[in-house]
């Protein structure tokens, strides 16, 4: 039998396997599991958006779109940033619609990274950045954020990680998995470092709408950052559209056109049905989105208070839909905790180390679940701890 592994590229062999895999295998065949391990809304895409998708199919809109995405969608995206953040992107050449934010991140990295370039990222963070940096030929340089600093990354930390090979940094706030947010002044500190060392920022702000008790600051809205930022966002989290796969990138025309080049030869365009749904979401989805945000906020208060009561120390997450409690008081590693909790009480959470070494000792618990499920989960965790 042929050993097919010999056909694999050297590069793919350096991409670490997903830490979630083994854990995922444990889940197969288990019933009655309450999952707090899901990185997506429990809401179904609002009906008016689904209906727009259905109508579009009925009308026969099943073709390719412009590589950049439907112009109506790019205009709607551009308008929403003008209204929400006062930043202006020309829908003609500064907005690129992608198949989810993951694709946009990949395009941004491939468009700017040369072999050996370093890209700084703060951990714990979304699982795909590191592999994407490696696949683009770059070297990931992780910077650890801590509970003490509420998982914010500081300008100082970035500065300490900069070398003469540093090309870019990836920022992702509100953060998956910690729920951390950055205040405007935190971001300004980073902007200073960016200018000082002539760097580029890839800012993934897909959770921007899910910000509680305060307003999200868009990185490119900071003084002088418009030309140094590739802004990534999408509709998955804000409008509960994960499976429809609509993301987008915005930035200086010179960078967006390079990303478009890769996109047009690989993905071609985002699915037209989803793009039409996205137009409906952006034009008429504000009220529905606000209702979901209010609901998340309630669950957030309820769940975080509950975790702290159980002695699982948890700072107040002000964004996304994750709580990131510490398991230090239990003397277990986060992997042990997660595996035992699943086995004994059938509650699934994601061990923090999956999101970077410094995430060990923490759990990512998604509160994008119904309140009854959250209640039962807390009861089961209490039982587990006793």
């Amino acid at each position, binding site marked *: 039998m042929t050993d097919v592994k010999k056909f694999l590229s050297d590069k793919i062999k350096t991409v670490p396997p997903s830490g979630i895999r083994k854990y995922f295998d444990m*889940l197969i065949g288990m019933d009655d*599991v309450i*999952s707090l*391990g*899901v990185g997506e809304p429990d809401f179904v895409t609002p009906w008016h958006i689904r209906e727009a998708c259905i109508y579009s199919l009925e009308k026969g809109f099943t073709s390719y779109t412009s590589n950049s995405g439907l112009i109506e969608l790019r205009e709607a995206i551009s308008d929403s940033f003008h209204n929400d953040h006062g930043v202006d992107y020309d829908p003609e050449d500064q907005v690129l619609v992608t198949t989810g934010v993951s694709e946009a991140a990949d395009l941004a990295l491939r468009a700017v990274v040369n072999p050996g370039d370093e890209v700084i990222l703060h951990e714990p963070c979304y*699982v795909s950045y590191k592999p994407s940096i490696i696949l683009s030929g770059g070297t990931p340089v992780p910077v650890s954020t801590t509970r003490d600093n509420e998982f914010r990354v500081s300008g100082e930390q970035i500065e300490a990680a900069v070398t003469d090979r540093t090309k870019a940094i990836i920022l992702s706030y509100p953060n998956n998995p910690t729920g951390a947010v950055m205040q405007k002044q935190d971001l300004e500190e980073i902007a200073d470092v960016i200018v000082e060392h002539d760097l580029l920022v890839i800012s993934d702000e897909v959770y921007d709408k899910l910000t509680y008790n305060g307003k999200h600051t868009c990185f490119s809205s900071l003084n002088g950052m418009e030309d140094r930022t590739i802004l990534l966002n999408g509709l998955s989290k804000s409008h509960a559209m994960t499976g429809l796969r609509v993301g987008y990138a915005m930035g200086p025309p010179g960078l967006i056109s390079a990303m478009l080049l890769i996109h047009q030869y690989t993905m071609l365009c985002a699915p037209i049905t989803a793009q039409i749904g996205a137009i409906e979401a952006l034009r008429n989805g504000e009220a529905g989105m606000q209702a979901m945000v*209010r609901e998340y906020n*309630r669950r957030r*208060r309820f769940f975080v208070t509950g975790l702290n009561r159980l002695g699982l120390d948890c700072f107040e997450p002000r964004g996304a839909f994750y709580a990131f409690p510490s398991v230090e008081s239990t003397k277990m590693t986060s992997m042990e905790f997660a595996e035992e909790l699943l086995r004994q009480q059938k509650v699934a959470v994601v061990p923090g180390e999956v999101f970077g070494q410094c995430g060990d000792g923490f759990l990512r618990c998604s509160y994008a679940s119904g*309140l009854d499920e959250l209640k039962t989960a807390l009861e089961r965790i209490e039982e587990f701890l006793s």
Partner: protein
Amino acid sequence: MNEILEIIEQDPKKDPSEIALLTGYSEKEVQTRIKELEDSGIIRKYKAVIDWDRVGEEYVYAIIELKITLGDRSGYDTIAHRIASFNEVRSIRLISGDHDLSLTVRGQSMKDVAFFVAEKIATLDQVQSTVTHFVLKTYKEDGVPLFKQEKSKRLAISP
């Protein structure tokens, strides 16, 4: 305040202690506010949405539209209040379009409802004409779907 109302509208049975956790108010504050909302009449009543069909109770519902001729000294409110006073009337609204008032009526049988319309409503001086639509099936009541909904198809773990 609106936050508490939004929660109660969804689930009037929710405990003040839980509402406190959800909103960030103290339990005492929640109790005080709910009392205020009840006293001022903002919260009118706590109600359950019941799928009577499944109980086997064969209620008959009808939507009745009325054309009204206003008298010299009385407006829509006067006649609406009179009609609203019948127990059979579940809701009554002033509407735009061809008709003036729209009623929802519940009775034990079609005959029951027909009799009510003929004897109690059509006979009122101000009622110029009536149109009765019997309800064949209710799919959604007060924001609550009465049909079976698909269960979530989310994966148990996703990044």
